[in-house]
């Protein structure tokens, strides 16, 4: 995948090209970023669902090194504080962007979509189906019916994969400027669904 630097700014201290607004890789000056810098921008990425995960990891390691409190321990107190603050933000950002479900959730929030507390909707018939799978699994387990438990595990795996694919597809569309409310609510619905499915998957060890 083509990776490009989308943070075309120069360091205000040494004028070197920067790839992230948090630190200059040339003179190691730390910058107190404004709150509205999103996680994508922190890593010099475009705000869209598909990202190069290898490049993300590379940049995370590089930035973590540059910002690390150990490298700023001789600096004045407020720079030391800033170093810790940015380190924590970087960790948070990496954790969010490196997980595709969390990334989709984050993109939805950035696009002004509802969170799970505001919009609890789920795809029709999902909850009864989840209950049914769980009850059948427990029943099969009590009967020591290995063929049946395997079959249910397989159904859960398929449901999980299908829902994830749907989320990824919707999150990619979110990128386009014409995205409408129905797309956002559909994504919310699928993101709600995956939480129930993941709970179930954990329960049956899928």
């Amino acid at each position, binding site marked *: 995948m083509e990776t490009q630097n989308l943070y075309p700014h120069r360091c205000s201290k040494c004028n070197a090209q920067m790839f992230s607004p948090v630190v200059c890789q040339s003179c190691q000056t730390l910058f107190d970023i404004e709150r509205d810098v999103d996680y994508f921008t922190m890593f010099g990425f475009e705000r869209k669902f598909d990202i190069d995960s290898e490049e993300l990891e590379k940049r995370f390691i590089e930035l973590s090194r540059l910002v690390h409190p150990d490298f700023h321990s001789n600096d004045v107190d407020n720079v030391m504080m800033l170093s810790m603050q940015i380190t924590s933000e970087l960790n948070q950002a990496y954790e969010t962007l490196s997980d595709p479900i969390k990334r989709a959730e984050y993109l939805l929030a950035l696009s002004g979509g509802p969170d*799970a*507390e505001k919009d*609890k909707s*789920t795809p029709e018939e999902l*909850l*009864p189906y*989840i*209950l049914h799978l*769980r*009850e059948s699994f427990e029943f099969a387990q009590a009967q020591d019916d290995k063929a049946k438990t395997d079959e249910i595990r397989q159904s859960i795996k398929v449901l999980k994969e299908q829902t994830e694919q749907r989320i990824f597809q919707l999150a990619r569309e979110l990128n386009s400027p014409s995205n409408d409310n129905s797309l956002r609510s559909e994504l919310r619905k699928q*993101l*709600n669904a995956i*939480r*129930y499915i*993941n*709970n*179930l998957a954990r*329960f049956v060890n899928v």
Partner: protein
Amino acid sequence: MRYNEKVLEHYRNPKNVGSFDEQAENVGTGIVGAPECGDVMKLQIQVNENNHIVDARFKAYGCGSAIASSSLATEWIKGKTLDEAKQIKNTDIASELALPPVKMHCSVLAENAIKKAIEDLQRKKAKDNNK
């Protein structure tokens, strides 16, 4: 965080766990979930000809508070009319169980499950009357 003793009691000895036949005409089923934590709860009511709730069952897949909330809810609605059961508020459940703020949604789940079960029953009856 420690669970309140009342929550633990319902968790260890939940009341009315199980299911009724969903197809039965005098049974209403409510299935609700909390996407924040992925908990799912099913609550069922069984009524007599006077629309009094004679029995209730639940199944809850979730934390101790979700189980305790639904267990308590089934206890409370037994013997009530549908209208009385509708009046049960999540805050009543939460204060009885002394749920902390982070577990409030469990009591909301129980309240919603009661309402959904009643709606389901009333839908069935309305259909019946139109036959």
